């Protein structure tokens, strides 16, 4: 950046507003979410009844693990279950 006048600095500060807090928290939860989902999938692989229950209502299964059932997590469960 050349020419550090304060007007330009102020304008550049305005370019980066904070991301919505829920988005940031979801991204920060990712390691825990991955671990919880791995546990769900493992349980589903060992228990056909649970597998059917999980696939029928992924949102509830995620919520039961304390995770917000965001579309990205639901999609991740589906992917893991089909692998």
């Amino acid at each position, binding site marked *: 950046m050349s020419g550090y006048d*304060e007007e330009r600095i102020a304008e550049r*500060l305005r370019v*980066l507003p*904070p991301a919505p807090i829920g988005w*940031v928290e979801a991204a920060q939860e990712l390691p825990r979410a991955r671990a919880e989902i791995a546990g769900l999938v493992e349980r589903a692989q060992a228990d056909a009844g649970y597998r059917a229950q999980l696939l029928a209502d992924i949102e509830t299964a995620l919520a039961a693990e304390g995770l917000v059932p965001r579309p990205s997590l639901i999609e991740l469960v589906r992917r893991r279950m089909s692998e």
Partner: protein
Amino acid sequence: METRSDAALVAACLAGDESAWNGLVDRFARYVFAITTQAFRLPPDDAEDVFQEVFARIYDRLGTLRDPDALRPWIAQLTRRECIDKLRANTREAPVDDLPEHEEDVLDRIEEAFDVHAALDSLPGECREVLDRFFCRDESYRTIGDQLGLPSGTIASRISRCLARLRERLEGRNPVATASSDRRDR
């Protein structure tokens, strides 16, 4: 506030340090958000999908990053690819080969803004807070004053003083050896 360099954050993330992951997300959340919403002008639902997908890919592929100091351009590239994929998925009848015309200009501005924010991170907390609230969060003098328990006039003068300090920092008159300035210098 996370002060580790990008390379140190990457190393700590790969070692399973959850606080490092939180720090990495904090450092780049605004950046990814700006690329999706300003450069590619994705609507909120699509921008959120891309935002989450980008951080999921970062998490999954961090170990493949050859140069940890290249974290920022790597994240920019991942974000652009995800945005393009999203635009393509939304425009099945006409493949997206033409990116938004203004995209490169906006991306340049976002890069510059990231550097300014990195310099902001090197200022004392009272300056960081007041400049972030006023310029980035678009809060009024009165709102900031109410939150901080200070008169509006004090907020105005603090903003002016802190902006001058930020300018000095950017001009290198008062450089500091922090992770933020390290990032700025790359």
